[in-house]
C-alpha cells in the first residue's frame, strides 16, 4: 500500500515537476538573455559617454565616434554624407567601398536625428548594442563588439531542487493520509524559489498555484482518474494520437495566433492592442449603410447566399452524376468518371479565368450562345445578380466533381440487399433513392456538405478571379473582404484577423447546428 502511495506521489510530482522545470528553465534563459542584453546596453552607453567627452572607449568596442550632421548632395536630396570624428582623426562616412561598420555609425546617427539619444540592440541578430549620446558636434555613438558572455546553467541548484522536491513528496507519502497531497504540493512549491529568481514574483506565485493545484489533484485522486482514463482508452488514444498531434502542432498554434491578431491594430508595421475595436468596427458596418456592398452585413448576406447556392448545386450535380455513373450497365464507366472529374483536375487558376472569359460581354462564349439563341447579350459583371450567377456557375463547375467522387464512394457502401428489399416492396426508383439511398448517403455526404460549406464560405479564388467583386465590390464575400483588409486597404492585418475570427465563429455555429441535425446518424448504423 505504502509503496503504491509513494510511487503515485512521485509520479504526480514528476509529471507536474517536468512542466514546472520547463517553465523555470524558460524563465532562466530569458533572464540570462535579459541580463546579457542589459550588460551590452550598459557597455554601449558607457562607451558612448566616454567618446562624448573625448576619451577612448574601452575595448572591445566595434566602432565609436562622434558623427556630424548630414550634408545632402546637391543633385539628390536623399544622398547625404556624414563625417565621423574620432580621437585619431575624422573621416567621411560612406561611399561605394566604405567599411560595413561605418554604416552602423551612419545609421545610428540617422536614428539619433529622428529619435534623440538612445541605446538599443542592433536588429541584425549580432547581439551588439549601440548607444548615442548628445554632444555639441553631434551624437557620440558607440557600438559594442559582440555578444556578452552568459551565466552558466546552475546544474547543482537544479539537482538540489529536484532532490528537495522528491524528499518532500516522499515524506508526505510515507506519512500517508492528508500528508500525501501536502507533500506533493510542498515538493512542487520548491520550484517557486528558482522561479522567483529567474522570472520574478509573478512566476513564483504561478508556480505556487500550480503546486497547490497538483497537490489538490493528487489528494482527491483526480490525477489517478485522469491517468486511469488514459490507460483505459490507450488503444483508441494511440490511434488518434498521430493525427491529433499533427493537428495541434500545425493548426492550433497558427490558429490561436490568428485569433489573437484580431485584437490588434496593424499600422505601418506596428501592432497595437485595441481590444474589441476591430470587431466593433466590422459589426457596426464601418460607417457604411446596410445597402452598401462594403457593409459587413451586406457581405455576410452575399456570403450566405453564395455558400448555400453553391453547396446545394454541388450536391445536386455531384449526386446526380454519381447516381448515373454507378449504374453497372453504363458503358465505359471508368472513362466517364475520369472525364467528369476533369474540372477538379485542371488547376483552377486557369479554368476560373476561362470562365471569366466565357462571361465577357462582347466576345464571351456565353453571350455568343445567348445571341445564337436569339436572346440579348448580358453584361455579366455590371449587375449583382448576373455577376453573382457567373461566380456561382464557375464554382459549381469547379466543385461538383468533388461531391461526385464523395457520393460515388458513399453510394457503394449501401448494401445492395436493402435496395432489393425496397424494390420488392414496390418502391419506384425515385422512392428507393429517397427512402434508402439518401438516408445512407447522409452519413458520408453530411461531413462533405459541412466541410464543403466551410470551404465555399472561404472560397477566395473564384470570387477574386471571376467577378473580382464587381460590380462595386457587391459580389465580394467575407474572405475576399478580409483579403482586401489585409492587402488592399493598407495592410490592416488586425481587421483582417478580426474578420477571420468572425468567419470562424459563424462557421462554428453552423457546424454545431449541422452536427445537431445529423446526430441521429451514428445510431442508425449497423
Amino acid at each position: 500500500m505504502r509503496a503504491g502511495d509513494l510511487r503515485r506521489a512521485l509520479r504526480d510530482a514528476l509529471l507536474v515537476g517536468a512542466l514546472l522545470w520547463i517553465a523555470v528553465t524558460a524563465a532562466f534563459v530569458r533572464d540570462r538573455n535579459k541580463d546579457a542584453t542589459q550588460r551590452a546596453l550598459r557597455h554601449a552607453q558607457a562607451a558612448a559617454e566616454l567618446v562624448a567627452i573625448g576619451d577612448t572607449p574601452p575595448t572591445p568596442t566595434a566602432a565609436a565616434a562622434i558623427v556630424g550632421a548630414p550634408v545632402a548632395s546637391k543633385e539628390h536630396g536623399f544622398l547625404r554624407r556624414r563625417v565621423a570624428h574620432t580621437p585619431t582623426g575624422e573621416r567621411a562616412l560612406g561611399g561605394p567601398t566604405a567599411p560595413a561598420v561605418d554604416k552602423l555609425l551612419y545609421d545610428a546617427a540617422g536614428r539619433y536625428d529622428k529619435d534623440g539619444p538612445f541605446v538599443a540592440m542592433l536588429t541584425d541578430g549580432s547581439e551588439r548594442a549601440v548607444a548615442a549620446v548628445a554632444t555639441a558636434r553631434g551624437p557620440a555613438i558607440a557600438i559594442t563588439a559582440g555578444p556578452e558572455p552568459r551565466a552558466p546553467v546552475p546544474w547543482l541548484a537544479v539537482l538540489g531542487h529536484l532532490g528537495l522536491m522528491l524528499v518532500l513528496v516522499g515524506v508526505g507519502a510515507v506519512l500517508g493520509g492528508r500528508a500525501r497531497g501536502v507533500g506533493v504540493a510542498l515538493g512542487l512549491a520548491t520550484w517557486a524559489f528558482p522561479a522567483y529568481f529567474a522570472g520574478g514574483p509573478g512566476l513564483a506565485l504561478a508556480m505556487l498555484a500550480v503546486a497547490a493545484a497538483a497537490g489538490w489533484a493528487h489528494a482527491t485522486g483526480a490525477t489517478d482518474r485522469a491517468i486511469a482514463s488514459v490507460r483505459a482508452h490507450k488503444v483508441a488514444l494511440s490511434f488518434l494520437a498521430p493525427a491529433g498531434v499533427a493537428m495541434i502542432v500545425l493548426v492550433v498554434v497558427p490558429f490561436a495566433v490568428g485569433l489573437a491578431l484580431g485584437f490588434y491594430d496593424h499600422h505601418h508595421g506596428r501592432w497595437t492592442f485595441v481590444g474589441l475595436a476591430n470587431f466593433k468596427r466590422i459589426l457596426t458596418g464601418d460607417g457604411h449603410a446596410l445597402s452598401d456592398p462594403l457593409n459587413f452585413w451586406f457581405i455576410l448576406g452575399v456570403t450566405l447566399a453564395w455558400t448555400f447556392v453553391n453547396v446545394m448545386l454541388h450536391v445536386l450535380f455531384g449526386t446526380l452524376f454519381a447516381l448515373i455513373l454507378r449504374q453497372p450497365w453504363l458503358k465505359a464507366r471508368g472513362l466517364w468518371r475520369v472525364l467528369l472529374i476533369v474540372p477538379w483536375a485542371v488547376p483552377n487558376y486557369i479554368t476560373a479565368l476561362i470562365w471569366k472569359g466565357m462571361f465577357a460581354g462582347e466576345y464571351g462564349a456565353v453571350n455568343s450562345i445567348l445571341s445564337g439563341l436569339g436572346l440579348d447579350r448580358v453584361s455579366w459583371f455590371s449587375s449583382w445578380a448576373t455577376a453573382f450567377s457567373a461566380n456561382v456557375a464557375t464554382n459549381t463547375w469547379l466543385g461538383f466533381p468533388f461531391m461526385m467522387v464523395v457520393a460515388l464512394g458513399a453510394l457503394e457502401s449501401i448494401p445492395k440487399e436493402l435496395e432489393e428489399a425496397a424494390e420488392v416492396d414496390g418502391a419506384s426508383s425515385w422512392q428507393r433513392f429517397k427512402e434508402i439511398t439518401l438516408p445512407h448517403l447522409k452519413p458520408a455526404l453530411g461531413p462533405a456538405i459541412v466541410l464543403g460549406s466551410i470551404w465555399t464560405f472561404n472560397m477566395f479564388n473564384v470570387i477574386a478571379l471571376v467577378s473580382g467583386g464587381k460590380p462595386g465590390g457587391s459580389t465580394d464575400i467575407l474572405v475576399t473582404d478580409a483579403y482586401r483588409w489585409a492587402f488592399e486597404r493598407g495592410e490592416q492585418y488586425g481587421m483582417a484577423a478580426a474578420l477571420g475570427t468572425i468567419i470562424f465563429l459563424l462557421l462554428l455555429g453552423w457546424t454545431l447546428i449541422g452536427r445537431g441535425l445529423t446526430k441521429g446518424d451514428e445510431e442508425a448504423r449497423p
Partner: protein
Amino acid sequence: GRSDAAVTVWHAYDKDERVAIEALAADWNAANPERKVELVAMPYDGFGDKLGSAIPNGNGPDLFLYSQDRLGDWTAAGVLEPIEFWIDDATAARYTPEALASLAYHDALWGLPVAVKSLALYVRTDLVPTPPRTTDELLAMAPALTARGVFALAYPVDDLYAHAPWLHGFGGRAMDGDTPTIATAEAVAAAGFARELVQRKVVPAEADAALTATLFAEGKAAMAISGPWFIADIPAGVPYTITTLPTVSATGLAAAPYLGTEGILMSARARDKDAAIAVALAFTSDAAAALRAERAGQVVPNPAAYRGALADAPRLAAFRRQLAHTVPMPVSPAMRAVWTPYKNALGQVVSGAASPAAALEKAATDIANYARTEGAR
C-alpha cells in the same frame, strides 16, 4: 543548395528578362568566384507577400528585384536596408534622376533602378496609319473604325493604372504626398472622359489586360494602351508601332502614365551588405543595363546605356519619349488603399451606374475610412 557565402537575389523575371539577368549573374560569378551570386526565380503572384514574411524571419534574400510601389510598407516594417550610405554623386549620375528619385522615400534611398515601366500607345498601322496626337483626333477616328466592328482603342478602363494617363492629362493626381486626392474636379473630368470613351464605343467596356491583348492581336482594336511587356503578346505578322499617348484636348496636357521603377533592393537582414551593394551596383551598371536593354528589351534608366544600336532601337525610343510625360508612381503606403475603391468607382462610372462625381466621392469616403486606423484614434 545555397551556399552561405553567396549573395542571394530573388526575382520574378521570366523569359528574356530572366535570360538577361542570368547572364549578368554569370558574368559576376566568373569575375567574383569567392562571392557568388545566386539567382532564385519566384512566381510574381505572392512574391511581395513572401518577401514581407521571409525577410523579417531571416529567410529572405540579400537582394531582390521589385517595383517601388511597396516601398512605403516595407520601409515602415523594417524590411529594407537604406543604401544611400554607399551611393555618391558619381554613382548616382549613372541613372536618370527621376528613376533614382522614385526609389527614395523619407529622405533615404532604398534601391538602385533596374528598369522603368510606363504605358504607351500601341497602334496597328494597318488600321490606323497615323496615330492620333490628341484625344479629339482619337474620338474623331473612332466612328469609322466602329463601323468596321473595330474599337479604336482598348485598355482596362476601370483600372486606375491604365486610367492614370487621362487622370494626369486632365491635371489630376491620385495622391498628394501621403494623402489621397480622389474626388477632385480634374479626376471627375478624367472619369467623365473615360465614360465618354465607353459610351461612344471608342473603347470596350469590359476589357482587362488579357482581352486588350487579344483584341489588339486580332484586329478588333486598332490601338491599345499598354507597357513594354505588351510586345511579347503581339503575334508575329501584326503591323504595329509604339508611340506616345495623345494629348488631352480639353486641357492641352499630355496624357501621362505612371512611371514605375523596378529596383534592386537590399534586405535589412542581408548577411554581407558590402557584397550585396557591390552586386547591386554591378547589375545596374551601364554595361549591365545595355545588356538588359538589348536582350530583354527593358527600358533601362541608364542614359549612357543607349549607345550604338540601342541608341535608336524604335521600341525603346518610344518608351523613352513617353518617359518625358510620366508621373512617378506614388510610394506612399496610403496609395495601396486607393486602387480597389478607384476601380469600383471607375466601373460604376463607365457602366453608367453612377455619375463620375458621385462615384469618386464614394471612393474618397471609403479610402478615408480605411485610413482611419484604430491606432491613430
